[in-house]
C-alpha cells in the first residue's frame, strides 16, 4: 500500500514538473509585448501620413492658384479636373493606408490582450472548487496557482498562434502596399511640391518684374518667400520622412514575419525595438509640417 502511494506521488511530481516546465517555456515567450509596441508605432506613423494624402489635391489647387496674378484676390478655387482626379486617387491611397493602420491596430489589440485575466478567473474558480472539496490549505493554494497558470498558458498559446498566422499570411501584401504608399508620398507628392515651389517663385518674380525698382515690394515679397520656402521645406521633409518610415515599417514587418514562428521574447524584442524607435523618431517630422 505504502509502495503504491509513494509510486503515485512520484508520478504526480514527475508529471507536474514536466507540465510546469513546458508551460513555463510557453509563458516565457511573452513576445506579444514587443509586437504590440511595434504595431502601435506603425499605427502612429500611418496616421501621420493622412495629412500628406490630404495635401495632394490641395497642392495641385495651390499650384493652379499661382496662375492668377498677385492681387487678383479670387474668391473661389480654380476648378481643375486634374486636381479633382489627384484628389480622388489620393483618397483611395489614404483609404488603403487606413486599412493597413487598422490591421496593425488589430494586431496591437490582440498582442496587448492580457492573458493574465484568464489566469485570475481560473484561480478564483479553483479556490471555490478546492474549498468545496475540503482540501488542505497547501493543496488549495497549489490547485489555485496551477489552474490559473494552465489557463493563462493555454490562452497565451492561442493568442500567439493567431498572431503568428496573421503576420505570416499577409506580410508580402503589407510590403507591397507600404511600398506603394511610400512611392506616392516620397516620389509623386514630392515632385508636386517641388513644382508648386517653382511656380510660387515664378509668380513672385513676375510681380517683381512688373514693379521693378520698388524696394518695399522687394522686401515684402522676400519675407513672404522665406516663409513659403520654410513651409515647402517642411512638407518635402515630411514626405521623405514618411517614405523612410514606411520603409522601416516594411523591414520591421518582414523581420517579424521571418521570426514569428520562433517568437522568443528576448530575440524579438531586440529585433523590433530599433524599428519601433526609428518609427517614433520619424513621426514628429511628418506631423510638424502640417500642424
Amino acid at each position, binding site marked *: 500500500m505504502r509502495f503504491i502511494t509513494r509510486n*503515485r506521488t512520484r*508520478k*504526480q511530481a514527475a*508529471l*507536474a514538473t514536466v507540465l510546469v516546465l513546458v508551460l513555463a517555456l510557453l509563458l516565457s515567450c511573452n513576445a506579444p509585448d514587443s509586437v504590440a509596441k511595434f504595431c502601435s508605432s506603425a499605427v502612429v506613423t500611418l496616421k501621420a501620413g493622412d495629412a500628406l494624402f490630404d495635401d*495632394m489635391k490641395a497642392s495641385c489647387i495651390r499650384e493652379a492658384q499661382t*496662375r492668377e496674378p498677385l492681387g487678383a484676390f479670387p474668391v473661389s478655387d480654380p476648378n*481643375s479636373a*486634374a486636381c479633382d*482626379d*489627384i484628389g480622388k*486617387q489620393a483618397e*483611395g491611397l489614404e483609404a*488603403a493606408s487606413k486599412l493597413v493602420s*487598422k*490591421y496593425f491596430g*488589430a494586431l496591437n*489589440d*490582440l498582442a496587448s490582450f492580457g*492573458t493574465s*485575466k*484568464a489566469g485570475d*478567473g*481560473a484561480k*478564483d*474558480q*479553483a479556490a471555490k*472548487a478546492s474549498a468545496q472539496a475540503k482540501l488542505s490549505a497547501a493543496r488549495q493554494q*497549489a*490547485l489555485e496557482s*496551477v*489552474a*490559473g497558470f*494552465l*489557463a493563462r498558458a*493555454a*490562452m497565451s*498559446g*492561442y493568442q500567439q498562434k*493567431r*498572431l503568428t*498566422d*496573421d503576420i505570416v*499570411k*499577409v506580410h*508580402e*501584401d*503589407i510590403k*507591397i*502596399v507600404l511600398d*506603394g504608399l511610400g512611392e*506616392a508620398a516620397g516620389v*509623386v507628392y514630392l*515632385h508636386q511640391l*517641388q*513644382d508648386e515651389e*517653382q511656380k510660387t517663385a*515664378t509668380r513672385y518674380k*513676375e510681380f517683381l*518684374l512688373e514693379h521693378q525698382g520698388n524696394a518695399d515690394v522687394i522686401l515684402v515679397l522676400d519675407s513672404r518667400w522665406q516663409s513659403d520656402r520654410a513651409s515647402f521645406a517642411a512638407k518635402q521633409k515630411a514626405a521623405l520622412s514618411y517614405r523612410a518610415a514606411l520603409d522601416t515599417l516594411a523591414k520591421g514587418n518582414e523581420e517579424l514575419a521571418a521570426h514569428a514562428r520562433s517568437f522568443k521574447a528576448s530575440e524579438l524584442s531586440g529585433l523590433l525595438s530599433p524599428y519601433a524607435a526609428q518609427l517614433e523618431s520619424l513621426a514628429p517630422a511628418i506631423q510638424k509640417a502640417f500642424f
Partner: protein
Amino acid sequence: MPIDPVKQAEELAQIFFGLSNATDDFRLHNFNALSAARQQQLKEQAQALDTRGQQCTADALGAILQGIQPHLADIKQATKDAQDALAHLNDVVKGLAIVDAAVALVGSIMAGDMGSIADNVRGLFEAISPTEKS
C-alpha cells in the same frame, strides 16, 4: 522589360513640369523684350504643360492605387481574423469552460490519474480553440 505604368506616368509628369518651368523661365528672362500678347501666349502654354503634368501625376497615383488594390482584400481578412481572435479571447475570459478545464487538469495531476490527464489536456485546449462552424 515590362512597362512600369507608375514610373512612366511619373517621368511624363516630370517632363511636363520641366517644360512648363522652362517656358516660364524663358518668359521671365525676356520679360522686357516680349510683347504683352507674346507674354500671355507663353504663360498659357506653360499652364497647359503644367496641367498635363498634373494629369500625369493623377495617372501615377492611380497606377500605384491599382497596383496595391489586389492586396487590400488579404489585409482586410487578416484584420478581421485578428479581431475575431481577440473577441474569442474575451469570450473565453468571460466563460467558465477554460477555468473548468484547467481545474479538471490540475485535479487529475494531483490525483495522479494518468488516464484522465490526456483527456483533460485535450479539454483545456478545446476550451480555448473556437469550435469550427459548419
